[in-house]
């Protein structure tokens, strides 16, 4: 097989995975939220309601596609794609197993974070082009929160990068294989040195996925449907899918950086190799369940509280922590650069 064909196949697999993921995650969200609220969630369409999201997608595909009169037609049309494409591109560098990934970028971490930050541009486009005041406020809010939390998100992964000395995601995973003293898995989450970074990462990542408690940009009780107010049919479906795809990416990043990716402690490599993607996906889905649990519990944060938290607390905190962390690993010579 020629390398071009192989990479094409990989890209197609990533697209398929993303669509599948979106469909499964929407179903999972409805079931999990249902259970959290002592309901059932969709159960009547297909066995255990499994056909529910395919039905929704089919319906959205055949709905009338309304273009309101006063919209900026070009932007209105591009915006869903501009939101959807980055969240698809972000799949490229995620290491599902030692061999399963679209491409093993040397700057994989940076690439993923940068591509994810493109989403906010699409949201602003949608908000601006819709010629709707709710959409405009929603788009503005989303840009505000994304820009504010880009910085702590980028900075919070720095301790990991300083520790392993690489931006390559699969190298970061490899650095976490093995155990501490034969008891704990050698994931970064088991090392107290990484806890502050992890907390900051989780908070800023939650904001990136636009979910409660940080769903100001589509706050249902305030802005009707935020940036997506004027979108109908599959354009809306793309927003919907990309939101879930984002939560997958965020969870996958957290697993890669802090929970050891596809590694498992006490399992020899030859056993692990075939089941590595399964292990990875399981970890990611546990992470997504926690996201949904948070979503079903917390009320929404106010915009100005959020901004103050970012600029006044989170960014100084993460900068300080990077400084302290750098001193610690330099003083005690803790860094374990790979490669």
């Amino acid at each position, binding site marked *: 097989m020629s390398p071009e064909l192989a990479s094409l196949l990989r890209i197609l697999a990533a697209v398929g995975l993303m669509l599948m993921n979106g469909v499964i995650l929407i179903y999972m969200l409805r079931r999990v939220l249902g259970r959290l609220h002592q309901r059932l969630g969709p159960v009547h369409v297909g066995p255990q309601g499994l056909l529910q999201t395919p039905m929704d997608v089919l319906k959205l595909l055949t709905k009338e596609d309304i273009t309101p009169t006063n919209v900026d037609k070009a932007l209105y049309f591009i915006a869903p794609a501009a939101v959807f494409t980055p969240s698809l591109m972000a799949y490229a560098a995620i290491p599902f197993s030692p061999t399963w990934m679209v491409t093993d970028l040397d700057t994989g971490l940076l690439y993923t974070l940068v591509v994810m930050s493109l989403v906010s541009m699409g949201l602003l486009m949608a908000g601006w082009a819709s010629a709707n*005041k709710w959409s405009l406020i929603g788009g503005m809010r989303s840009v505000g929160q994304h820009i504010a939390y880009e910085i702590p998100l980028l900075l919070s992964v720095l301790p990991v990068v300083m520790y392993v000395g690489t931006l390559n995601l699969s190298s970061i995973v490899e650095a976490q294989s093995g155990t501490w003293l034969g008891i704990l898995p050698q994931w970064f989450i088991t090392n107290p040195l990484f806890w502050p970074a992890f907390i900051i990462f989780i908070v800023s990542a939650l904001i990136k996925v636009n979910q409660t408690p940080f769903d100001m940009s589509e*706050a*249902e009780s*305030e802005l009707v449907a935020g940036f997506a107010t004027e979108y109908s049919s599959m354009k809306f479906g793309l927003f919907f899918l990309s939101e879930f795809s984002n939560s997958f990416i965020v969870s996958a990043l957290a697993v890669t950086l802090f929970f050891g990716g596809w590694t498992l402690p006490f399992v020899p490599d030859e056993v692990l190799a075939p089941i590595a993607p399964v292990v990875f996906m399981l970890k990611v889905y546990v992470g997504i369940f926690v996201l949904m649990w948070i979503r079903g519990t917390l*009320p929404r*944060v*106010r915009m100005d509280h959020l901004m103050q938290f970012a600029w006044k607390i989170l960014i100084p905190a993460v900068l300080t922590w990077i400084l302290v962390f750098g001193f610690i690993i330099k003083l005690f010579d803790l860094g374990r650069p790979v490669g």
Partner: protein
Amino acid sequence: MTEPHFTVTESGLMTPEGMYIPGEPPKGIRRIPKGVDRLGTEHLIVNMGPQHPSTHGVLHLIVELDGEEVVTVEVSIGFLHRGIEKLAESRRFDHLGTLMDRGDYVSVIHGEQAVALAVEKLMEIEVPAKAAWIRTLTAELTRLASHLVWFGTFGLDTGAMGQFLYAMRDREVLLDILEEISGQRMMFNYVRPGGVVADLPTGIESRILSFCDTFEVYLEEHDALLGGNEIFQARVKGIGVVSKETALAFGLTGANLRASGLGFDVRRDRPYDAYPELEFDIPIGTIGDSWDRYTVRMEEMRQSLRMIRQLVGGMPGGPFTAKVPKVLRPPAGEVYASVESSRGETGIHLFTDGGTTPYRMHYRAASLFTCQLFEEILPGHLFADACMLLGSFDIMLGEVDR
């Protein structure tokens, strides 16, 4: 965009009401001229409602926003005007309850009770003890159900779906009990002049008591889930402060008034039915912000539970209705009777001319007074807070528009 209603002259802005002086509101009007403020940005006017998730019905607010800050608010009501007061003039006195049910459609019994009390006052009917106690019991159960709707939608306004669904879960049990007593889940048509329609069904006492036991646990959970949440506290504390003077000036009653630190409660100050024989406390807030309104209502739910326990325990025997003629014909005159509904004082002012229908009925609805307050309270808050403020006041549009 409409035409700006000002002209620019050499000395500044000329509005129809006079010269605009920066930093001060224009003379005679509160509205800052459109499109002008200290940043020089254009104000955004959004129409909130009649279809908007956080207006709880069909309230229409015309909100002028400067960025995210609310500058002015105009309340537009009347989307649910269906002539309850006018239709009452063609309804017999014992049928008035069916109209009042649909006035404040969440605290239903209180409307029926107010009508019944008014007619009884006119005709000087002595209500048997048991009827009074059953009425009070159903009224307190309804108060719980109504406060649960407030709690759920307040949670929904803050973006938390869980609270809403948990509140609905508890309300289901309450509605089952009320359905068993009266026959319908919402529009009971149970209280009539002279008493109630039917006796309590057998075995309902144990159901009510077991509900009280479970709900006591759930109520503390609700309080911890929403009230204990730091995000929620940061959003409600110090927001929407209604001072004592404002509260009095706008004629607030009920929990909104008590949150401002004024302890007026019809149940205690103008007691009716079985309330004089019950032991209960009246929670009072301190500064009148959203947090006070929240805590006062939560405490009211606990007091309601306490009252329900007393009512079930001490239910007297005897007939459940007084001897009343089949067709009520009160003497000519006028009467005012009020009850403490979940939203404040619900009053009925009846004018009669000796016929079988009222000559005129006035319905004093607490939410209408709360509605007027928005134009005063909302400006200066962020838009997100404005949505929450609407939730914290607990208005019911059926009562506002009637």
